[in-house]
């Protein structure tokens, strides 16, 4: 029953996905790649690339795509996989629906209390750790190759990683443009 597991997993991701799209990605990565093995590490990276380049929230995009790919990998037909992606997206949004309605109905005045603020004070640094872990977990042979298997691809990959890192952090190049440049580099150098 992959649909039930997809539902529970993405409901949890929606419920604990603090810190915006990228904070959510670290949960999606842990659940779909490390825990359930629905996706390979490189499939997850591809999903993030596509989610970044297409319109809409990254969380919704990657849940839709991950739900679909998980079903395809499990051997389901295309229509059944579409159902899987709908399940994942619906489950991701459901906690938001419940929480935001509760907050606007009952808890609006509690949001500013010191107790609630103190919980967020602890959460913010932890989300930084979540993202760091997701980055480290994605540094795999799937994504970078290795010096022994394919040294050429490995060092090109390392170069593209460093270039994208400094390009977006320091030079503030648009991430979508960086993905397109990296894709061109891949086509020219890794074909």
């Amino acid at each position, binding site marked *: 029953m992959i649909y039930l597991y997809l539902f529970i997993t993405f409901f949890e991701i*929606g419920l604990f996905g*603090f810190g915006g*799209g*990228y904070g959510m*990605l670290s949960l999606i990565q*842990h*659940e779909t790649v490390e825990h359930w093995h629905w996706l390979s590490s490189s499939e997850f*990276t591809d999903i993030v*690339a*596509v989610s*970044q380049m297409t*319109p*809409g929230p*990254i969380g*919704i995009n990657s849940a*839709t795509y991950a739900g*679909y790919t998980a079903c395809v990998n499990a051997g389901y037909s*295309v229509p059944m996989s*579409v159902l899987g*992606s709908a399940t994942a*997206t619906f489950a*991701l949004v459901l906690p*938001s*629906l419940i929480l*935001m309605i509760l*907050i*606007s109905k009952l808890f609006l005045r509690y*949001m500013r209390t010191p*107790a609630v*603020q*103190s*919980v967020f*004070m*602890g*959460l*913010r640094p932890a*989300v930084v750790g979540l*993202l*760091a*872990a*997701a*980055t480290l977990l*994605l*540094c795999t042979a799937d994504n*970078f190759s290795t010096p022994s298997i394919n040294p050429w*691809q490995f060092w090109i*990959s390392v170069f*593209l990683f460093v270039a*994208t890192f400094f390009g977006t*952090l320091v030079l503030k190049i648009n*991430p979508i443009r*960086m*993905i397109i440049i*990296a*894709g*061109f580099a*891949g*086509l020219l150098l*890794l*074909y």
Partner: protein
Amino acid sequence: MYFLLFKTFFKIGLFTLGGGYAMIPLIEAEVVDKHRWIGKSDFLDLIAIAQSCPGVFAINISIFIGYKLRRTLGAIVSALGTALPSFLIILAIALFFHQFQDNPVVSAIFRGIRPAVVALIAVPTFNLARSAKLTWATCWIPLAGALLIWLLGVSPIYVILAAGLCGWIYATIIKPTE
């Protein structure tokens, strides 16, 4: 009204590239300036609340505004409007991409894109660290969290729960006695 809510959030979902905070100006233009569903200062409060809550930022905002105007059904319609463009576009790409996956040109392009995407996930780590105002007294929190998840395979959900609990314990029990 339901149709207008749906249409507005569908447009917001369709036209924002990059997601998250890139969506704020468009959402503001639509719900504050154009339709006047919410005041400017209420909108700033709403951003703060939607940011602290779990889940997708734009979805949280759409649910809040939909609920304010037309209760639960309004919230559902708004959330559906925001999510639907993403869902349809991604599905179209997924159906298309699965046929071209094994194409040598496509796989060469993605071999180049993958390391770049890992870097794109590394960058917000540093941006978030800056906005979380980490000090020498708090920088062990992300370090410990990252090591637990990376080396010991602990679920990020437990790290989130523990961090929230520790924040609360610190503020209510430890800090007053210091």
